[in-house]
């Protein structure tokens, strides 16, 4: 294969693979900006992935599948919000609880309802007229599925919502100084319910992007920890939408290169190569830890003291 083709190949799959990272990490960023750390992303993704797959599998309708993922994600988000806002649980621990719930539940449902790995016909690439004809670039950026476009569109939308809207202002204030926000009549609980539920929905969609767009199947633990990397990406991206995008691309490109190395039979230990993204997570987090300041109220339950 010519080097150009390999590079185009890596970039194309890199962009595709960034999709679940983006949905999940942008959703997580909203939660964290408002002060809630949700470690249950991976579990929410798995349930979303299963819901999308199963509904698509039984009805043949991709949009219904996506809707199912949205609903399941929203329910998981609401539950997480209830536990963190109303019950004021320790966020790290309850998040892991949600992860384990999603992991186990999706596996159970899969075994009960489907049994063996089956495939569905997922969202197909849509070539954007004119743009997709640009040599190389066209194939990389403008011949992807709707879920991929959606993920990339989400980045400027998230940036806009966080920085240019009254809602975004409330989210940022609640994550930094909930007492101050509260004293101005901003409902800390409402804001956190919103962001955590939104995070759940986007995690569900992230899962759906895997099961009905990228891989078009469901498998037990098919995310293999991707949701945790998404949480890490939020730190890496310094809680900013564009930072999250940069992180997601970095990871997906490394993943894509690693996959392509297997395809091209580059003589490198493939197990070692597949640990690359995880090793990178650790390095990147260690480096970014001292660089930026997290939202001051992150992981802190809010209680007015009465």
């Amino acid at each position: 294969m010519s080097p150009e083709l390999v590079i185009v190949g890596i970039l194309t799959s890199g962009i595709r693979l960034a999709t679940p990272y983006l949905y999940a990490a942008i959703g997580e960023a909203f939660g964290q900006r408002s002060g809630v750390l949700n470690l249950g992303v991976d579990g929410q993704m798995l349930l979303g992935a299963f819901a999308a797959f199963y509904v698509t599998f039984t009805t043949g309708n991709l949009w219904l599948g996506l809707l199912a993922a949205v609903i399941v994600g929203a329910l998981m988000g609401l539950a997480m919000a209830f536990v963190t806002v109303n019950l004021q649980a320790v966020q790290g621990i309850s998040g892991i609880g949600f992860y384990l719930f999603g992991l186990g539940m999706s596996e159970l449902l899969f075994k009960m309802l489907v049994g063996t790995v089956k495939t569905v016909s997922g969202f197909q690439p849509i070539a954007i007229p004119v743009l997709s004809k640009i040599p190389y670039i066209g194939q990389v950026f403008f011949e992807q599925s709707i879920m991929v476009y959606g993920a990339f569109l989400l980045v400027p939308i998230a940036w806009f919502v966080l920085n240019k809207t009254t809602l975004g202002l409330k989210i940022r204030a609640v994550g930094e100084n909930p007492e101050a926000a509260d004293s101005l009549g901003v409902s800390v609980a409402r804001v956190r319910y919103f962001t955590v539920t939104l995070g759940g929905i986007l995690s569900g969609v992230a899962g759906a992007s895997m099961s009905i767009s990228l891989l078009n199947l469901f498998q037990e633990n098919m995310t293999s920890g991707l949701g945790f990397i998404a949480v890490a990406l939020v730190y890496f991206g310094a809680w900013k939408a564009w930072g999250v995008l940069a992180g997601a691309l970095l990871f997906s490109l490394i993943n894509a290169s690693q996959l392509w190395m297997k395809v091209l039979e580059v003589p490198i230990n493939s197990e070692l190569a597949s640990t690359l993204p995880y090793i990178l997570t650790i390095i990147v987090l260690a480096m970014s830890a001292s660089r930026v300041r997290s939202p001051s109220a992150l992981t802190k339950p809010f209680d007015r003291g009465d």
Partner: protein
Amino acid sequence: MTENKLPSGHTRIDSLEMRGITKRFPGVLANDKVDFDVRSGEVHALLGENGAGKSTLMKVLYGMYGPEEGDIFLNGKKITIDSPTDSINHGIGMIHQHFMLVETLTVAENVALGLPSSRGFLTDLDKVSERILELADIYGLKIDPDAYIWQLSVGQQQRVEIIKALYRGAALLILDEPTAVLTPQEVDEFFVIMRQMVADGHGLIFISHKLHEIMDICDRVTVLRDGAKIGTKTIADITKSELANWMVGREVIMTRELDDVERGKPRLSLENISCDSDRGTPALRSVSLDVHAGEILGLAGISGNGQRELAESITGLREVTNGKVILEGEDVTNFRPGDVTERMLSYVPEERMKDGMIKDFSISENMVLREHHISPFAEKGFLMLKTIAEHTDDMIQKFRVKTPSRETKAGSLSGGNIQKVVLAREISRNPRVLLAAQPTRGLDVGATEYVHAQLLEQRKNGTAIMMVSEDLDEVMALSDRIAVICEGEIMGIVPRNEATPQKLGLMMAGVVPEEEETRTTSFTL
């Protein structure tokens, strides 16, 4: 414009009445069947010792705490206030003792927070900024709407709080120790604003520990003690010392003589130090000062002129870009904070809530924060809990910290009592050098008296004390010499007997005194 409208267009509140308010916290009866009322066009003072329950009563009114008992009446009609939104909607605004500002947001964003925007779900920060500048202009509150809160000094942050309330067009304004952070000039300016608001028909509730302010600006005063109301009096019917004695319940010493103490060698010397502000602009420009054993050097200046940066440069919290910090002959420039304080330098920071203690730690944990790792509080790596407990109880008693127990979280103490905990910790280790920023800010008359006595006691023991204060009365009462700082430069150092409020006020405004010798002599001494 109808009769009962304010210039801001909001409806006037003719009268507001709280009846039989009771509020309990675990182990504390913070408000005990308190009655309180305020009318349009008056300033009603709320006075009481630290922990008497003033802030709590006001937080009940503002909807932040739900009281166990009691009712609130607005213009004679009973209303329910369950949240700040309710009180804002009723036209009540509050400036909190501890600022309610989001540090990472700009001034305009803080003001706009929680308000509907003229552009729907999009923020309208340009419009907000315009209105801020308008208000700032009317009331003489200089502020940059685009500045981030973390870049502002305490005094400037106060202005943001005032603007925040004015912006919301509050008809009734609760001012919880608004003047604690202002200089005398700023207080005068602030009173002009208050008088204007009162003339416009606003009702104001004013909390302050400074009796002369209450005498100056208020119409009536209500005194609380241990959560209960002692009484309400008309200011015209009472004198300042009567007020002090009524509040504390005993005679209070208001002025004090300095003992003759022999001044020793310089213990802390700053040699031409410079440093940058958080914004990266120069904050200190070649500052040189000596603080000698057995003296109190007062550092006067308007807030935000480099005082915080100076203290942080000395304690290693801020990078010194040029010059030297010499502690007892040793160059400690840019040492780590722990290494500086280990050399028996004590530091009472200006922002006690943020820099002085850990809110979620108990009083005893906060009390040994500095020396928890060394004898007698720790032996061979183990905390000596009994010693710590005894020491804490001792300090609580000596400094009269009002708390249910030593295990109470420091963050739940009243403002003045938090300050007492920090002071107790820093003073009780008998430091060689004591750096105290605004040591009596927010303290009641009795506690101020006690802290002043403690500072003078330290001076007698030969401690070198640098006291940063915006309170000229305090500076002039306690300092042997007074250095005045303006825009990061020392304008001059005035010996105690030559200091007058006029002279210091001019220097604080950046006017260098004519007799240059004062400056040179203080260097050679």
